[in-house]
């Protein structure tokens, strides 16, 4: 009886920061064993990115690291040293998947290209997540979440028409690339488990964000028109935050009924969806007296009961109190020897007949003994030497 969907799958994880680690977090939550290979001394850069409890930096207490690396094992290994590479190759022999998110030249320069690794282990699936992909004129250029968002065409349509365009908050493009990496890895793993022959998965963060276009690309391809930044929704203040209301044709009368202003139905300024967009400020002025007297969750509930697809602008605080999230048991509490008991976002899905597993993130090099000694046969004294030599 299989307990986890990916029971028995072994993953070697060279990734850092967000995109790669989110990919391997999904694999580990689904039951794969993920061995995270970190730089000796400092480890994954996410250990420095926080947030930190009481704003006191600590390698073992970075919120981003703790969240992204649940369930993984950590070994320290200097893969820029010959000995480190030799050890890595021993580990490669035994795994199903290797995931990395370095700049494209790094793995080939280290002698760890897919050509070489697949000779060592023909069934291996190697997944590379990079900013621009493994080839093309931009492949070695530097990038960041904002620059990729700009190049994808998505930034051009977000924000106020009179101001600079906006990026989405946080790093959603990198997270999405992690999910895309997970999907590509599973496709290759499925094939490799049948044929015994692996594959190389090339995921570009830019291409991932690019394919998230809803309308702008199709608009240009079909009509030659460039979509402009427009207000697509009313944002109304409540007494404790904001709600967003979009009003399509069938729903317009329901909004009138909700706020008790039937005379607006006759108002020419608001007759069609596009005219409502143009006169959004004026429309908001009518709606705000209703919303400002209510909390955002109350306005959300009443609006939904009236058949309107209203949402409220939720903060992390709101979500931790959400009855829906509580019902779904989305948040989980995990204990950690240094960071203590904390509540974490969980997995956004449930399997009907399988579980997910989300144990705590590892301490830096926590599993050196388990992996190097028990699995690879090094002695404790060897580990001391390797540490002194800067290999682990």
């Amino acid at each position, binding site marked *: 009886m*299989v307990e986890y*969907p990916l029971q028995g799958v072994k993953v070697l994880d060279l990734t850092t920061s967000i995109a790669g680690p989110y990919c391997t977090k999904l694999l580990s939550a689904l039951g794969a064993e993920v061995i995270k290979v970190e730089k000796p001394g400092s480890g994954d850069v996410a250990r420095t990115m*926080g*947030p930190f409890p*009481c704003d006191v930096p600590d390698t073992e207490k970075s*919120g*981003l690291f703790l969240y*992204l690396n649940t369930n993984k094992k950590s070994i320290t290994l200097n893969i820029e040293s010959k000995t480190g590479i030799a050890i890595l190759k021993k580990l490669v022999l035994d795994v199903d998947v290797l995931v990395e998110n370095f700049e494209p030249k790094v793995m080939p320069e280290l002698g760890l290209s897919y050509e070489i690794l697949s000779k060592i282990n023909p069934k291996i699936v190697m997944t590379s997540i990079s900013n621009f992909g493994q080839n093309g004129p*931009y492949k070695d250029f*530097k*990038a960041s*979440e*904002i620059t990729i968002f*700009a190049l994808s*065409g998505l*930034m*051009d349509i*977000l*924000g*106020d028409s009179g101001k*600079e*365009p*906006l990026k989405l908050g*946080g790093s*959603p493009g990198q*997270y*999405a690339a992690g999910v*895309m990496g997970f*999907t590509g890895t*599973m*496709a*290759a793993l*499925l*094939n490799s488990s049948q044929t015994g022959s692996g594959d190389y998965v*090339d995921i570009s963060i*830019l*291409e*991932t964000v*690019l394919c*998230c276009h809803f309308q702008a690309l*199709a*608009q240009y391809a*079909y009509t030659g028109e*460039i979509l402009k930044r427009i207000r697509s929704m009313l944002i109304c203040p409540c007494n404790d935050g904001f709600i967003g209301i979009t009003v399509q044709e069938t729903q317009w009368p329901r909004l009138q009924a909700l706020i008790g202003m039937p005379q607006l139905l006759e108002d020419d300024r608001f007759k069609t969806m596009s005219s409502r967009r143009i006169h959004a400020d004026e429309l908001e002025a009518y709606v705000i007296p209703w919303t400002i007297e209510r909390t955002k969750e109350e306005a959300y509930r009443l609006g*939904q009961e009236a058949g309107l697809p209203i*949402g*409220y602008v939720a*903060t*992390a605080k*709101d*979500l*931790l109190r959400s009855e829906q999230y509580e019902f779904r048991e*989305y*948040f989980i509490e995990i204990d950690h020897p240094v960071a203590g008991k*904390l509540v974490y*976002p969980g997995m*956004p*899905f*449930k*399997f009907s007949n399988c579980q997910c597993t989300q144990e705590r993130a590892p301490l830096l090099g926590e599993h050196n003994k388990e992996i190097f000694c028990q699995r690879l046969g090094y002695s404790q004294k060897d580990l001391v030497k390797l540490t002194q030599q800067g290999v682990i």
Partner: protein
Amino acid sequence: MTRLDQIRVLDLSRYYAGPFACWLLAGLRAQVIKIESCRQPDPLRLEARGLYPDKEPGQKPWNRSGMINDRNRNKLGIAVDLAVPEGKGIFIDLVKISDIVVENFQADVMNKFGLAYPVLQEVNPAIIMISLSSQGLRGPESHCRSFGANLEQLGGLLSITGYPDEPPYISSLSFPDPLAGMYGAGLALTALYTRRKTGKGTHIDLSQREATTCVVGETVMDFVMNGRVQSANGNRHQFMAPHGCYKCWGDDRWVTIAIDSDEAWSNLCKLMARTDLIDHPKFADSLSRYQNQGEIDVIIGGWTQSQDHYQVQNKLLEAGIAAGAVLDASETFDNPHLKSRNSFESISHPEAGTHLYAATPLRFAKQERAAGRPAPRLGEHNYYVFGELLKMTQAQIAELERKGVIGSAPVK
């Protein structure tokens, strides 16, 4: 056997999230059958928002909708009324010979059709069902109406998106939809992998709202650890500076720049012919740059404002600096890097003409991508699916058409 090109997917989904998941699976060469009905085709066929070739709806506008044609490439299409017994029977027969069912209806709809997972599982214990609902299939808000834009709000993404000290800025990106679609495709493949060992399918219940919260996980950690509610910070970064969007020459032209090291700062100053700033006490180290980024932003803006956004981007990239021009749709299609990667594909649709679309980002060294086939017209593959796959006779199919159980045009 679970070779991807022998997998059959029944795509009951509409709008964006589900169709996107199935588009990814179709790109992996799975056989995807998009299932609509004439009474209720995918709403994007009829709510095309004027997105027709050259804005002309034509004789059959439901086959010319840009968003449908984008999201449903590489799929077969049938139109069958699941609300009548014969239609439901056809669907059940298809479930018997398929591997995956994807749906993104509101929480209770599959139940109302009498086609919830327990029914499908009885018919085919190996069937894998993926439900991509807004908030999950059960729970006090599972019945709430949602779509991409309000899921950005409900999931926590919008509270950190916007100009500083202003009300949140709603996007028209519908980002939660493709995000959920990516999860959906990956989870379907995971279930196929597990099924190899167990022979059994499963039902996966994904909440788009929760999927959105996952990508702002660190904001949850900040509240849990510090009781702090993060707010929107425009185009600034938590710790990188300078970092933002700068006005360039021309109407609404901008370039984004992110400086992440002393070296990048030094290279930027050289490009701007302001080497005096490199070691200036206000800007020499990363902390002082962060504290004085307002001043730096003005200096950079002064430098970019007279330059073409693409040219300044290229100068910056060549100098080892992270930069990206804010490209509009036409420029995106023309981006030399994306063109060289074949990130777009040209597809000819029999009723909508030939257009460029973003190709699947799932690329492999060995596994081939699906050949780019156009999205199906409504009911286009009725005869193939009912005749070849379900072994119905021509007479049987004609009778179903006559009764209105199947068809190829919308009806009221």
